[in-house]
């Protein structure tokens, strides 16, 4: 069942590429503007690289949250999901997976290329990419709760950011922390463990919380 939802959402994303590309271009542009604005001093760029990439990823992921449920809501598919005998949490998991595949994975793939602009060393690039790989699914899963709660509200976009950004902060801190630790030649395994723990916790709780929020928003 999860597979059906993922397949459908990927198909929709393929047919509406502009939505996907908006997120990716936003990410690329924000990350590319910083070196131009700050100036070409390699030591400054190296220190700020992970922060800039992570903040851009956070904002890019949030940019697309509004679309997560809104089109399903508008055309009545969401009603049918709520009425499905299959558990809503499973369907919501499918939505979060496809959100990650469509918005998270392209960011992860672009990150090493963008990191070169910041003169990051090879292993720091690798750590940055891996930290995004572990962290971006958390963004999609937590974002799903916010998107579900603000469904159908006017000004939902602002509300989503207020609800979701505080919850994104741990991911940001440990994601950038891993890269900084690796650049400083320190052990970064602990940061990855915490990111992994955040991922597991959000896999367990987010679908359930999102399903409950959807039922509230739809009744």
């Amino acid at each position, binding site marked *: *069942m999860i597979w*059906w939802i993922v397949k*459908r959402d990927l*198909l*929709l994303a393929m*047919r*509406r590429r502009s939505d996907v590309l908006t997120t990716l271009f936003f990410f690329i542009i924000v990350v590319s503007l910083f070196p131009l604005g700050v100036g070409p001093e390699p030591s400054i760029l190296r220190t700020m690289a992970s922060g800039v990439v992570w903040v851009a990823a956070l904002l890019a992921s949030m940019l697309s949250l509004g679309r997560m449920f809104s*089109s399903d809501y*508008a*055309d*009545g*598919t969401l*009603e*049918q*999901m*709520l*009425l*499905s*005998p*299959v*558990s809503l949490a499973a*369907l919501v998991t499918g939505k979060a997976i496809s959100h990650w595949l469509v918005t998270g994975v392209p960011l992860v793939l672009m990150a090493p290329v963008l990191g070169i602009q910041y003169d990051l060393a090879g292993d720091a690039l690798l750590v940055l990419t891996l930290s995004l790989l572990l962290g971006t699914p958390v963004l999609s899963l937590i974002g799903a709760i916010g998107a579900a709660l603000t469904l159908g509200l006017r000004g939902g976009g602002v509300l989503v950011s207020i609800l979701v950004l505080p919850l994104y902060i741990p991911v940001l801190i440990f994601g950038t922390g891993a890269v900084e630790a690796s650049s400083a030649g320190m052990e970064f395994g602990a940061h990855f463990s915490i990111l992994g723990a955040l991922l597991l916790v959000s896999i367990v709780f987010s679908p359930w919380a999102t399903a409950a929020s959807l039922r509230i928003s*739809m*009744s």
Partner: protein
Amino acid sequence: MLTARNLECIRGEHKLFSNIFFSVNPGELMFVGGPNGSGKTSLLRLLCGLSSPDSGEILWNGMDIRDLDGDYRGMMTYLGHLGGIKDDLTALENLRISCALADCEIDENQAADALGQIGLAGREMLPAKVLSQGQRRRVALARLLVVQTRLWILDEPLTALDTAAVKLIKEILEHNLSKGGMVIMTTHQEIVMTAAAVHHLTLS
């Protein structure tokens, strides 16, 4: 058997309806009528469990539908105003996905058959956005040909359909009723159907 006892629905300050009692047995049909804004859609949404009544209870074979949860949803099909049709997907994909959501997976041939029966032969591969309003409604209604549910709750299923399609839908509904299914629907059109019993519930 679906039973409603003393249903009441309040929207904001406004009481839409109260003291609604009815029961629908296998093979029976119920029309929900009333002017625009009288709460027909709200009543149907209560019956399918999308929202909860402000007071009263809805029982399926004597058990509260909220307790039955997924078991009840597995026995019921709801088609609302919004058909759940995605503009960017083809008629075939729309049908297959809406059936999969109803936990009744079908392959491409079954979906094409159903679409052919409902009068969309040759249009299976068109994206829904190029279909007319009536054709989109047919895509949504094609699900009724495939699902195995007992209780159908249909909100204005005949809107935008031509006379041939109305006749077709009437046959599909009568077939379900003759198998012991139950249908609860709203419509503003005059339609005569044969069923074990036809109830009329008028909201004011």
